[in-house]
């Protein structure tokens, strides 16, 4: 960047100061500038900001297209309006509004949250359409298409004129913003990020995808209800058709264009959405803004061209979209008539070219301009403590069978591991080792047989249930939380403790220097270690490691062996799948061998290495080789 500014502030503090300044300015505006119309717009913006923060919970944080938010907004509005008609005091009416959105939202969540992607979008869209139909047809209650009028109530006997109501909305927005930040930037927020990146790992580590999705959706619905309540009081008149698909698209525009996963983004989006209709009627202003957008859009592809590469679709498409918007701004006879089309173009450019919205771009630029004071990390505490294990069975898998179609992946396998034992599981590729671990950890449901972990029988096929019984695992194919940092990955799943304890777990696997590094930027070997740290942080009774040394360099393998040795010393029972026979030999007390879904040998590493059946499984038998040779000799020339 051209220049830097060094601030003695931490980024978090700077953001808080900016936020406070923003609200002070917003609150002061009515006193400086008297204009009913503008005040109305600002109030609308505050209401939309609350609504968009709610939408961000599903669209931004969960990453799902939620098409029900406008309808929930409407339900909240009608709820409050009816409460006000029934002379319920204002604070209670706001709560009614929240409930009016939260309850149907919860009802929708039950089926919808098990769905992903297009199915989720569809279920929310159906719900939204049904809600509008319901509001339209319940004429005796809502007055249907004719609309519902209410008189603005007073708050504790204070009449709410425009300015006071505006301040009320600002207060609600301030509280909502603070609460959203608290909720979504906390461990809850980490969990939501984690479940996007790997739902399997999230469940396997006991974080609970469904629970978190439901909470996030509930939060979003509650905010929709609150915004609806404010909207009803602000506008005084409600019509079902106003809460349909047209509004929903505008809300999506706000969230995406403003910036997802970001309360500032929701605010910026609300401002854009409120101002956009007015911007459109002022052609010169609009044209200048679009030109600015074009220039911003064209910078990346030009940079790519200059370095002699062909710009990608994500770089060229936004330019095309903004150019089309500019053409409309300059040549369309009535820009207002193209409102939807212009929204569409902006939204397209944002989704493809500016995935983090304008706040994302602004934050990136700000971070380059300003060097904030670093956020210090506390000293590591905790980590792997030496302990003694008790006696008895840790894991008892009894007569497990699992078939996929005609293939018997696991065929009548019985496995017994004692507490504190490190038990190896080896076998050629496709022998069913990982499937067995998947069955024990609850990813699959066995066709028959049972699993007992520390005397508890978890529900078959349930990752969360197996976790509660005391199991934790790593994965053959890495399942990192790519969007989180190493520290975040630990914090989201650790059973107890705060940052220092999380640092302790990182220290235990040798990753404390990389605490602030994003998983997507970490090396393969580091990610393998991180998976182990994650599992350790949950304080499991039984730790299952699925080929932890796969693809590791020699020095890393030595580190791995040291790590597993210290885990052993902590008294944790370990089930270790590995192909590296030297690792198995050093670490394991006993080894089970699988081939073709069946258990073919059990013994110490030494015994197993010499077992002829094991040799045959890996290398094939002598007899077949001899037979082939004799057949070849028998051929006439």
């Amino acid at each position, binding site marked *: 960047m051209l220049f830097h500014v060094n601030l003695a502030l931490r980024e978090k503090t700077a953001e808080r100061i900016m936020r406070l300044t923003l609200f002070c300015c917003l609150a002061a505006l009515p006193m400086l500038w008297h204009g009913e119309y503008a005040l109305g717009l600002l109030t609308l913006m505050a209401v939309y900001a609350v609504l968009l923060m709610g939408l961000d919970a599903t669209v931004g944080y969960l990453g799902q297209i939620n098409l029900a938010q406008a309808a929930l907004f409407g339900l909240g509005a009608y709820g409050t309006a009816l409460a006000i008609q029934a002379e319920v005091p204002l604070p209670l009416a706001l709560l009614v509004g929240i409930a009016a959105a939260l309850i149907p939202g919860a009802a929708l969540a039950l089926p919808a949250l*098990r769905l992903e*992607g297009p199915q989720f979008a569809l279920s929310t869209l159906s719900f939204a359409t049904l809600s509008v139909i319901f509001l339209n047809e319940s004429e005796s209650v809502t007055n249907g298409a004719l609309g519902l009028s209410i008189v603005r109530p007073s708050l504790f006997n204070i009449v709410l004129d425009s300015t006071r109501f505006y301040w009320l909305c600002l207060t609600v927005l301030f509280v909502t913003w603070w609460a959203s930040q608290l909720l979504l930037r906390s461990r809850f927020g980490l969990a939501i990020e984690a479940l996007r990146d790997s739902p399997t790992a999230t469940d396997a580590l006991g974080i609970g995808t469904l629970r978190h999705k439901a909470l996030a959706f509930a939060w979003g619905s509650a905010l929709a209800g609150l915004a609806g309540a404010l909207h009803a009081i602000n506008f005084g008149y409600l019509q079902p058709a106003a809460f349909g698909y047209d509004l929903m698209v505008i809300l999506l525009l706000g969230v*995406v264009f403003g910036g997802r996963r970001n309360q500032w983004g929701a605010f910026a989006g609300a401002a854009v959405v409120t101002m956009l209709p007015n911007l459109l009627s002022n052609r010169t202003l609009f044209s200048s803004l679009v030109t600015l957008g074009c220039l911003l859009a064209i910078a990346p592809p030009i940079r790519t061209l200059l370095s002699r590469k062909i710009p990608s679709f994500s770089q060229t*498409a936004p330019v095309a979209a903004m150019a089309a918007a500019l053409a409309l701004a300059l040549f369309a006879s009535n820009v207002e008539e193209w409102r939807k089309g212009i929204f569409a173009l902006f939204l397209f450019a944002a989704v493809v070219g500016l995935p983090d919205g304008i706040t994302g771009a602004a934050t990136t630029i700000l971070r380059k301009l300003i060097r904030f004071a670093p956020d210090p990390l506390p000293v590591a505490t905790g980590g792997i403590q030496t302990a003694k294990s008790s006696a008895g069975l840790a894991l008892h898998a009894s007569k497990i069978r699992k078939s*996929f179609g005609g293939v018997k992946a696991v065929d009548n396998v019985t496995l017994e591991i004692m507490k504190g034992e490190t038990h190896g599981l080896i076998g050629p590729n496709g022998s069913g080792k990982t499937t067995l671990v998947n069955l024990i950890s609850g*990813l699959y449901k066995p066709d028959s047989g049972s699993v007992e972990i520390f005397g508890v029988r978890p529900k078959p096929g349930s990752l969360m249930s197996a976790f509660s019984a005391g199991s934790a695992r790593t994965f053959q194919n890495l399942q990192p939380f790519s969007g989180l940092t190493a520290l975040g990955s630990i914090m989201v799943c650790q059973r107890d403790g705060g940052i220092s304890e999380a640092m302790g777990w990182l220290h235990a696997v040798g990753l404390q220097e990389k605490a602030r590094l994003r998983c997507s930027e970490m090396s393969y070997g580091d990610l393998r270690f991180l998976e182990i740290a994650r599992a350790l942080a949950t304080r499991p009774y039984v730790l299952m490691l699925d080929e932890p040394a796969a693809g590791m360099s020699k020095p890393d393998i030595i580190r791995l062996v040291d790590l597993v040795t210290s885990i052993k010393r902590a008294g944790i029972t370990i089930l270790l799948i590995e192909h590296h026979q030297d690792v198995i030999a050093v670490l394991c007390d006993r080894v089970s061998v699988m081939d073709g879904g069946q258990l073919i040998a059990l013994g110490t590493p030494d015994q197993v290495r010499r077992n002829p059946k094991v040799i045959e499984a890996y290398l094939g038998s002598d007899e077949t080789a001899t037979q082939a040779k004799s057949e070849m000799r028998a051929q006439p020339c």
Partner: protein
Amino acid sequence: MNADFLALAQMAVGGGLMGMAYALMAYGFQLTYTAGKSVNFGQGELVMLGAFIGLSLTGIGLPYWAAVPGAMVAGAALGWFVERAAVRLALQQRNEGWILLTIIVGLFGVSAAENIWGRDDKPFPVPWPEGALEFFGISVTWPELVIAAGALGMMALVELAKRYTMLGIAVQAVSADPDSAELCGIRSKSAISLSWAVSGAAAAFAGTIIAPVTTVGPTMAAALTLKAFSVAVVAGLDSGFGLVLAGIALGSAENLSGFLLGSGWREAPGLILLILALALRPQGIFGKKIIRKV
């Protein structure tokens, strides 16, 4: 026959015929989904644009028999455009951004239609005679019959092409396993584009057969997409003929509920059915239950 029963039968038949148009749209979903695991959330907009383009072509003097194929060609081009602009990037990145992007492109389509053709609903001229035919006391108009015949015919045509032409077989190969198909020299990207183009043509055709009954207007798009989804989800995307049955059932149910409960409730059964189907059998439309491999 009892007048009330006749009334119900009239409503059911009228709805059922219309439902075949929904089945045709759902068929378009099937084409793109099997090839590229994505559907056009703006399919209704393609139907609307096809109808408008057909209308304009008749307006400049082309006879109906030329205007409809003309609209289909435009539909194919639009379908290809949607795939290129909204879907390909997401497929490459292996995420589901195409949901939002197809919605966006559809939105732009509505806006363009409003400005090019105006916001009013316009009648669509057809060469069939006006007035209705009577079968056992039930009146059916020619355009309604054409919807049924056209939808069935179009679906049959595409199915035949899929099975008996080289192109069709190539697309089927890509649907089954894109990587193996590539290894055999079939460009999966082109196959996917082709399926989107055919889906667009089918949507445009659906527009030209629906418009004479409902008139053409920018607002016709939104409701249609959701109905087509209902048919696709309930029937299941690999169901072929099942789509037709589901379409007839949905259309009849709509008309009957509008008749019995009031016109505002028409859409309700389809929507409730969609949510239930998604809740109980989500893989109906978007894939078999995937076995997670970790």
